[in-house]
């Protein structure tokens, strides 16, 4: 039963809804989400556009011939090989450290946890050159006549500074901090109840970690390796200071770009930059594929 009140300002009866308990009538309106998507998409696309434009500019600047010339240089091939090996070594080492450290920070309260938590972030916030300088000082600081680098080189037979181990260590110092953050978040998101129940079933803490927590963290571990590898690939400052940029010896692709630029080979530097972009994309895709498999 509709009353004459259903007609308001000449609006058709079908456009009017009576709310039960209110005794008032409201006009049905169609509200569009267009503005929401326009604003959100517009802001998001600024960043995406910036990256796409940068890559497009690189591609337009260089030519396939420049790329080919750069790739056939013996120095670049050596840098490529060292980059692949050092990034992989740094990423694997980061995972080995980040998994237990992330777990301890996520699961246990212990004296000085806040300090450990803060120390882990230092390589992230420290200027890269300062990190390299700190590594250099650490290895060459005389302590009562004893020096770490001298001991490693003369007694252990494994010198670090200005050699390939310095490249790996410089990359590891930064990569590991990012990997620890990733693993901390991963374990924070895993419910510890399953590990508690595993302990009542007979697991020691170590068994609960290996059999219950680690399998659940597989996706986070893949993410940690990815982040660590990508960070290692982009590392430049600490490598330059701690390992130097000696061609065919401690040169990685990030230092190659710098060296090519410093001798005026701009085309070669851009070609190398594109190579690094491609390497990063391939590694990210492979690891994402492996990550999907691990959680399937």
């Amino acid at each position, binding site marked *: 039963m509709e009353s004459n009140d259903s007609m308001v300002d000449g609006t058709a009866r079908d456009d009017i809804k009576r709310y039960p308990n209110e005794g008032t009538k409201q006009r049905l309106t169609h509200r569009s989400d267009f503005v929401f998507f326009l604003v959100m998409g517009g802001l998001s696309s600024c960043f995406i556009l910036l990256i796409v434009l940068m890559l497009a500019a690189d591609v337009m600047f260089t030519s396939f011939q420049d790329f080919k010339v750069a790739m056939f240089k013996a120095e670049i091939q050596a840098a490529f090989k060292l980059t692949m090996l050092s990034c992989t070594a740094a990423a694997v080492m980061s995972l080995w450290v980040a998994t237990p450290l992330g777990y301890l920070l996520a699961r246990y309260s212990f004296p000085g946890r806040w300090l450990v938590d803060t120390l882990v972030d230092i390589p992230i916030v420290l200027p890269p050159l300062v990190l390299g300088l700190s590594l250099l000082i650490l290895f060459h600081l005389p302590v009562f006549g004893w020096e770490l680098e001298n001991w490693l080189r003369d007694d252990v037979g494994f010198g670090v500074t200005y050699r390939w181990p310095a490249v790996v260590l410089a990359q590891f110092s930064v990569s590991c901090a990012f990997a620890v953050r990733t693993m901390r978040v991963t374990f924070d998101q895993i*419910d510890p*109840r*399953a590990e*508690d*129940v*595993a*302990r*009542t*079933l*007979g*697991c*020691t803490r170590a*068994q609960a970690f290996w*059999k*219950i927590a680690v*399998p*659940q963290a*597989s996706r986070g571990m893949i993410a940690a390796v990815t982040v660590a590898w990508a960070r290692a690939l982009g590392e430049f400052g600490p490598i330059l200071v701690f390992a130097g940029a000696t061609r065919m010896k401690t040169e990685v692709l990030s230092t190659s770009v710098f060296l090519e630029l410093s001798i005026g080979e701009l085309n070669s530097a851009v070609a190398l930059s594109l190579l690094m972009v491609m390497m990063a994309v391939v590694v990210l895709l492979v690891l994402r594929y492996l990550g999907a498999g691990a959680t399937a």
Partner: protein
Amino acid sequence: MIELRNVTVQAGKFQLRNLSIEVDAGQYAVLMGRTGIGKTTLIESICGLRKVVCGQVWIHGTDVTHYSPSDREIGYVPQDLALFPTLNVREHLAFALRLRRVSRERIVARVKELAETLGITHLLDRHVQGLSGGESQRVALGRALSFEPAILLLDEPLSALDDATRRETYALLKKVQKASQVTTLHITHNQEDVDVLADCCFRMEANGMLVTVS
């Protein structure tokens, strides 16, 4: 048997003081009490997951107060079940047996026996993510019973089940208890659980005291 002697448990700022309870061997005991009163804290202290500040926890004549959870031989079914997301049903039932290095043949036989008792044989190769509430409950129960524990602790095991599944689970719990004669402590809010299952009943009062209900 399960015996608590003047146990005090601390859980953050919450404290349970001077708890004493005794459940005879083979009995099915039910513990009732309001939400948030500390029933789960009590059961976790029996498991060893919460540290006992003072007092003693005895299981079948052994003082296990300072034993780690892994050494107490307690089957525990928590309220949230806490199934292992990366394992399938068969692996859940075999988990505790593998830890004890039981032979492969005995594990296969025990898993088969448990699955038949619990009616989950058809689920053995399924992952736990897709299981219904009742099925998950049975898997958690099977996991807790797999190693023939000294005692069984159930934390509101029927709270998330519909009436029909609840009645099926009553029958199952009775069957399991009769077959295994395992001493059981079951936490609940539901009077029907007491009426159907309990040999003896305790109520936790607001002051943390445990009272035997006749």
